[in-house]
C-alpha cells in the first residue's frame, strides 16, 4: 500500500471528524442562542451540552394528540347557509316554508308551489356556493358538496394548527412541535413544559368572547327573569348562566336574560393583556379594532345606565353597568387568578379556534423524571462503553486500542450527524446508541479474529491484516445491511420511541461501517504500513 494513499485516507478521516465536531458545536450554539432565559453569557460547555435536542422523556415535557372536531365547522357553515337563505327569502320574497337542519352539513326547506323556482336556484347559486340540492315534491334537501366539505374540514384543521401555534408561541416554549397528522389530528410536543393542565386548557379553550346587553338579571331563578317581559321569552333574547358574585362554588347559580345578538365579539379584539381592576384584583383589559370600536361606541352611548354582560364561552363573567360612552377598550373582571387572567389575555390575543378539540393522547414527563432518566441513561452508557474498551484492550492489546479509537470516532460521528439533522435523542435513542456501539465492536472483533486465524495458518502479519480485513468485509456488510434494512422499516412504520430508536441505529450503523472498515484499517496501515518487514503483531 503506497504511502500517499494512507495519507489520503487520514485526510478523509480528519475531515469527517472535523465536520462532525463542527456540526455538533454549531447546533449547540444555535440552540443556546434561541434559548433566551439564560442570563449569563454561554460558553463552550453550554454548546457541548446543548448540541442535540433531547426528547420529552429526557428533558421533560408534554406530548399531546388532539382531534379537531371538524363537524363543528360544518355545523357553523350550515347555520350560516340557512341564515343566508332566509335572508334571501325575505329580500326576494321566495316564499319558502320551514327550514330544518339534518345532520352536520345539510338542511331541508319547504318550497311553496308559488315559489319562483328559477329565482330560488339563482339565489342558491349566488349565495350558497358549494351547496347542492335535491327535490322531493315540495321538500328541497340542501347538502354541502363533498369537495366543499373537504375544504371546510381542511381549513378548520389548518386554522386550528395556526391558532394553537399562536397560543404556544405566546406562551413562550422553545422548540415546540405543532404538526398535523392524518386527516384531522394535530400532534403537539412541548419540551420543558411542566404545567400540563394549564397548557391543555390554553390549547383547548375556544375563548369565544361576546359582549351582550342585559335585559334582566342576575337572578337565581330563571322564571323570575322573564317577569319583566310578562313571563314570555322575548324574541331575540336568551338566558345564560353566570358566575355567582362570591367565590363559594356551593352558592346557587345565577342567570341573566341577555340580548341574543352580541354587540361586540372576540373577533373585534385588537389586543388583550392581563391587568388589575380598581380593587387590585387580576383582570384582563382589551382594546378593539376600528370596526368593533365604532360598534361599541354606538352601543354604550345608547345604553348608559344599563348593564353590559361579558360572556366568555357561553358563561357570563361579569355584568358591569355602563357609566358612559366607551369606544375602543374595556376590562373583563371576574374571580380570576393571576395565572388565569394571563392565559385568558393570551387566548383572546391569539384568536378563536374554528372547531372544538378533543385530546386523544396525552403524555407528560415531569422535570425530575427526565433529569433522573438522562443521568441514569448516560451513566449506564458510559460504564458500558468503559467495560467494552477495557475488555477490548486487554483481549486484543494494541489492536484493541486501535478499535477503541475507531469506536470513539463512531460515537462522535453519530452525535454530529444527529445534531446536523436536528434529530431528537430519546431514551430508546440512547439504547440504539448502545447497540450501535455493540455492533461496531462486533465488526472489530470479526476482523481481529480473522487476522488471528490467518496468523495461525502461518501467514505473515502483513498478509494476515490484508486478508483479515477483506474476508471480514463481506460479513460486516451482511450484518449491517440486515439490521439497517429492518431499522428502515421501523423508521417508516414505527411511532414515537420506536422511531427514535431506528434513527439512532441507522445513523450509528452507517458510521460503524465507516469506522470499523475504513478507519480501523487506516490505523493499521499507519502503524505497520511503513515498515519493510513486520515480524509480530500486537493482537
Amino acid at each position, binding site marked *: 500500500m503506497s504511502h500517499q494513499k494512507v495519507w489520503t485516507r487520514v485526510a478523509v478521516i480528519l475531515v469527517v471528524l472535523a465536520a462532525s465536531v463542527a456540526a455538533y458545536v454549531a447546533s449547540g450554539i444555535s440552540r443556546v442562542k434561541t434559548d*433566551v432565559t439564560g442570563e449569563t453569557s454561554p460558553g463552550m460547555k453550554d454548546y457541548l451540552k446543548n448540541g442535540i435536542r433531547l426528547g420529552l422523556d429526557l428533558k421533560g415535557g408534554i406530548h399531546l394528540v388532539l382531534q379537531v372536531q371538524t363537524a363543528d365547522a360544518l355545523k357553523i357553515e350550515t347555520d350560516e347557509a340557512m341564515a343566508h337563505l332566509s335572508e334571501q327569502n325575505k329580500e326576494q320574497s321566495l316564499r319558502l316554508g320551514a327550514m330544518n337542519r339534518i345532520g352536520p352539513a345539510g338542511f331541508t326547506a319547504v318550497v311553496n308551489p308559488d315559489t319562483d323556482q328559477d329565482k330560488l336556484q339563482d339565489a342558491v347559486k349566488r349565495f350558497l356556493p358549494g351547496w347542492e340540492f335535491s327535490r322531493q315534491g315540495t321538500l328541497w334537501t340542501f347538502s354541502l358538496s363533498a369537495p366543499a366539505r373537504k375544504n371546510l374540514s381542511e381549513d378548520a384543521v389548518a386554522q386550528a394548527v395556526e391558532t394553537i401555534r399562536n397560543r404556544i408561541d405566546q406562551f413562550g416554549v422553545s422548540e415546540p412541535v405543532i404538526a398535523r397528522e392524518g386527516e384531522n389530528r394535530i400532534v403537539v410536543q412541548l419540551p420543558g413544559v411542566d404545567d400540563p393542565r394549564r397548557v391543555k386548557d390554553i390549547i383547548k379553550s375556544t375563548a369565544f368572547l361576546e359582549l351582550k346587553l342585559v335585559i334582566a338579571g342576575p337572578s337565581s331563578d330563571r322564571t323570575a327573569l322573564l317577569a319583566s317581559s310578562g313571563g314570555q321569552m322575548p324574541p331575540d333574547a336568551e338566558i345564560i348562566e353566570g358566575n355567582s358574585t362570591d367565590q363559594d362554588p356551593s352558592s346557587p347559580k345565577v342567570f341573566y336574560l341577555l340580548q341574543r345578538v352580541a354587540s361586540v365579539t372576540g373577533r373585534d379584539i385588537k389586543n388583550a393583556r392581563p391587568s388589575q381592576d380598581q380593587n387590585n384584583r387580576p383582570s384582563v383589559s382589551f382594546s378593539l379594532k376600528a370596526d368593533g370600536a365604532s360598534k361599541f361606541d354606538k352601543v354604550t352611548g345608547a345604553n348608559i345606565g344599563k348593564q353590559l354582560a361579558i360572556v366568555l364561552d357561553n358563561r357570563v363573567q361579569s355584568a358591569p353597568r355602563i357609566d358612559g360612552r366607551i369606544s375602543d377598550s374595556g376590562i373583563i373582571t371576574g374571580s380570576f387568578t393571576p395565572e388565569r387572567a394571563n392565559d385568558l389575555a393570551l387566548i383572546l390575543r391569539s384568536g378563536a379556534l374554528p372547531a372544538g378539540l378533543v385530546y386523544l393522547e396525552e403524555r407528560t414527563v415531569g422535570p425530575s423524571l427526565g433529569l433522573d432518566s438522562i443521568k441514569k441513561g448516560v451513566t449506564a452508557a458510559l460504564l458500558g462503553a468503559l467495560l467494552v474498551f477495557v475488555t477490548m484492550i486487554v483481549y486484543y492489546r494494541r489492536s484493541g486500542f486501535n478499535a477503541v479509537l475507531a469506536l470513539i470516532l463512531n460515537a462522535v460521528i453519530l452525535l454530529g450527524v444527529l445534531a446536523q439533522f436536528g434529530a431528537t435523542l430519546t431514551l430508546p435513542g440512547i*439504547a440504539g446508541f448502545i*447497540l450501535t456501539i455493540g455492533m461496531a465492536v462486533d465488526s472489530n472483533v470479526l476482523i481481529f479474529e480473522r487476522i488471528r486465524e490467518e496468523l495461525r495458518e502461518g501467514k505473515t502479519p502483513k498478509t494476515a491484516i490484508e486478508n483479515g480485513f477483506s474476508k471480514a468485509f*463481506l460479513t460486516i456488510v451482511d450484518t449491517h445491511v*440486515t439490521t439497517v434494512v*429492518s431499522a428502515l422499516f421501523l423508521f417508516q412504520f414505527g*411511532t414515537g420511541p420506536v422511531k427514535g430508536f431506528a434513527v439512532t441505529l441507522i445513523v450509528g450503523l452507517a458510521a460503524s461501517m465507516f469506522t470499523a472498515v475504513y478507519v480501523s484499517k487506516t490505523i493499521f496501515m499507519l502503524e505497520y504500513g511503513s515498515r519493510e518487514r513486520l515480524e509480530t503483531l500486537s493482537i
Partner: protein
Amino acid sequence: MELFRNTHIDFLRVKWICIGASWALIAAGFISIAAHHGLRFGIDFSGGTQMVLKFAERPDPAKIESIVKPLNLGLEGVQRYDTPEKNEVLIKVKQQEREGRDVTQEVFSALSAALGGPAAGARIDANVKGHDTFATSLAAADPDNVAGKLGATAAQHYAAEGDAIVAYRSQVGLFRSPADFDAIPNVSPAVKAWLKQNTVIGPFTVLSADNVGPQVGRDLRTKALWAVLLSTLAMLVYIWVRFDAKFGVGAIIAIIHDTLITIGLLSIFNREITLVVVAALLTLVGYSMNDTVVVYDRIRENMKNNRRDPLPKIINDSINQTLSRTVMSSGLTFLVVVALFFLGGEVLSTFALTLVIGIIVGTYSSIYVAAPIVVIWNEMQARRRPVAVAAAAKAAAPAPRGAAPRPAGNRKSGKR
C-alpha cells in the same frame, strides 16, 4: 489473550437435546402466558391512563386505592414504583369508552383534596405547578419590586426565578415543608417569603402521566404490528437473496424461536409489553440475525473451499471457527446491556431485561438452533429425494435444485 484456540466441539451432536430444551422453554412461556390470562400489554397498546407520583412520605397503596376507586374510572391498580425509599407509586386506570376525558386531572384533584393539598382557590400547589405558573404569579405579585425599573423586564426576571424553583424541586424530588424554600439557590429572600405565604406544599409531585385514548391505542397497535412484520420480512428477503433457501428457513426458525422464548420469559417475569419493548424485541431479532449471518457466512465460505466435506462437518467447523468471535461480541454487548439493566433505572428496566434475555437466547440460537436446522432440513430433503443421497458431497453443494454456487469472483468483488 485468547480464550478459544482451535476448538473442536461437536455442536451438532447435542442438536436434539437443544431442540428439546428450546421447546421446553417455549412451552413454559406459553403456560405462563395462559396462567396470566394473556400477555400484559402496557397502555401504549391497551389504552388507558398511567400515572407515576412521588410522595414526601412512604405512600400507602391501599389508601390511594380507596381515594381513586370512588371516582368510578375503572381503577386497575396501585403499585409501588422503583425502589421503596423513593416513595413512588404507579396508578393505572382502564381505558375510557369516550375520548377526551381528563382522567389524570380527575385523579390528581381527588388525591390532592383527600391528602391535604390546597383547596380550590388562589393558593398554588408548589409541588405540582410548573415554572411558568410560578413566573406568572410572581410577576403579578412582584415581591422583588422590579416592575418599572431599568434592566430586565419583570417577566424575564421572574421567569429565571420560576426556572430556579422548579430546577431545585426536580433535584430534591419534591418540597417537603416550607423550610425547603430557603435552600433554593438563585432566588431572592423576598421570593422565598412570597412562596411561604402564597403556596401550599401538596402531598405529591407528578413524575409522569400518560393517557392513551381508544383511537390512538388502536393506531399504535396496528402500526407496531406492521413495523414488526415488515421489518422482519425485509430481513428475511435479504437473507434469502444473499444465501440459499435452506439458510432462509434456518434464519426464520431461529428468529421465531428467539422471539417466542423472550416473550415467554417476559411473561414469566410479569413484565408489560410496551412500545419500547417492541423496539427491544426488534433489536434482538436484528442481533440474533447478525450472529446467524456470521455463522452462515462462514458455512458458505467453507462449502466453497472444502467441497468434499459433508455438510454436518462443514457446519461444525464453521461454528468452531467463529466461536471466539461469537463469544467475544456477544459478551461485550452483554456487558453493555447488563450495565443498562442495573443502572438504567425503572424506565429502562424492561427494555434492558428484554435485551439481556435476547442476547443470551440469540447467541444460543445462532449456534445450537440456526445451524442444526440447516442440517436437519437438508437431511429431510435428502430423504424425500433418495437419488440425492448418493453422495454426501452433493448434499454439501451450496444450492439445491442445481443452482450454481456463487461464483468466486463475486466474493472477490467485495474486496476493496
